[in-house]
């Protein structure tokens, strides 16, 4: 794998919160390149403004009424968390000091 591709994959992995070992990175480089070839075809398409816009401006946002309603209990919401204490989810220390 060349240095430029490795740096790009590392940067994307960092943004994606993923990590790959050396062997995985090599496979990924090839598969992403193939995928990139496929999606690059979109760049070759000639669409002028009359053929399509990137936003559908015919639609308007629909807001729901802000009504208080019953929801789930803390116990129900915490049931799937791996670790918890005193009704809170526990996580590793985030702040230094």
């Amino acid at each position, binding site marked *: 794998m060349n240095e430029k591709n490795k740096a790009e994959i590392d940067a994307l992995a960092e943004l*994606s919160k993923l990590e790959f070992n050396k062997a995985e990175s090599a496979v990924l480089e090839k598969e992403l390149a193939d995928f990139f070839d*496929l999606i690059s075809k979109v760049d070759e398409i000639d669409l002028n403004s009359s053929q399509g816009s990137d936003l559908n401006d015919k639609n308007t946002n629909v807001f729901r009424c802000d009504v208080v309603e019953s929801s789930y209990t803390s116990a129900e919401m915490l049931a799937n968390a791996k670790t918890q204490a005193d009704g809170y989810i526990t996580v590793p220390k985030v702040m230094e000091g």
Partner: protein
Amino acid sequence: MINRSVYEHYIALNKREYSSVELTKAYLEQIEKKDKKTGAFITVTADGALDAAKKYDEGKCRKSVLAGIPVAIKDNICTKGIKTTCASKILQDFIPPYDAFVIEKLKAEGAVIMGKTNMDEFGMGSTTEKSVYGATRNPLDYNRVPGGSSGGSAAAIAENEVAYALGSDTGGSVRQPAAFCGLVGMKTTYGSVSRYGLVAYASSLEQICPLSRTVMDNALALNGIVGHDRRDSTSVCRKYSDFTIGIKDGVKGLKIGIPKEFFSIGINESIKTAVWLAAKEYEKMGAELVDVSLPNLNSVLPAYYILSCAEASSNLARYDGIRYGYRTDDYISIEELYRKSRSEGFGWEVKKRIMLGTMVLSAEYHNQYYKKALKVKNNIKTEFNNVFDKCQIIIAPVSPSVAYKIGGSENPMRDYLDDIYTVPANMAGIPALSLPCGVGEEEMPIGMQLIGPAFSEALLYRAGYAYENRGKAGDI
């Protein structure tokens, strides 16, 4: 009794030919007997199913058409108290605290939920091989895939383990398994079935959809799950009529478009012929065939993968190992917890699509790819609208080939390219009905698609029913 249609079960239950408990037990026995080989189910909920069946028999639930009849649910649709894994290690222990809208609806109808079916992880695939629980096999040939990503739902019906099933269709994930297993699958109009409780992959493209043995069953199943839901902001508020009304009215005078582009891109000759012969059958039944064109069809597939991966990278950012889902044992910092939990919890295909989605959303590529893909999406809607000025529905193939051999996908690009005929309906948000139209290589079924304008499901069912029941006296 297990190979009967939903409608036949409805009649039989009402005549008390058998009880819902007897029917449910018969399907559970079939699952016990067959599913070790087929691998359609991730979770079987035998106790819950028998409780629901008992309620029906004791007259404690609504006597709707779907009441008392066993159904399978794809494992990306949330079921309260029942594991919902998306066939991923990252959600292998996840038990939703709530039911999806469609599950609420089915429970209200008195349906008997038999369990959760296998799929490609998070819906990313077209073979149901990319599951942490292993591959599902096609009951018509165990050496072949059932299609995907809703392959478990399709295989469960084809193996007579349930009467019908729910899947989800982001780029063909219900229609292609229907075609590979000789079944009927409807990709519904975007916004017609609530996505509340559907684990998100590509939110602007996906819909929950019914799979069944017959067109009539599919219409009955859609009747049970369609409707507005304020918890899904893309749910369309309108009155949905009974989809079986007029289903037997035939196709006389119906204008059916034949888009030349669908018959020219790398298609297997036997499939091309089968779909063409189906078109000629429609002509014999009084329909008019019209040549139409979607000139930018080739642009749709790359745009689809840009948008679906972009949305996946955003939607799957929620899996961080904190509130729910898999958490690594090996971490010191919170950053490391995120990175390792995600890297160990997601499968290869999912990680690849997250990476690609992250790339097309990055500042460098956003305008060049993501915004261009949105333009293509709007453009294909316009092209379909232009086509529907000339005809009422379109006929097209579902897949360029019949069901693949298991493990035969040495080139991962094949799966992406084979979505060419199914993704246009998702990109345009319009409905498309997949139904069998013959057999091809080694007697494997071939599927065709009937595609119509938004909210034309009833018309598609009418056309599908006419083809399915052609030549049967008294039906049309």
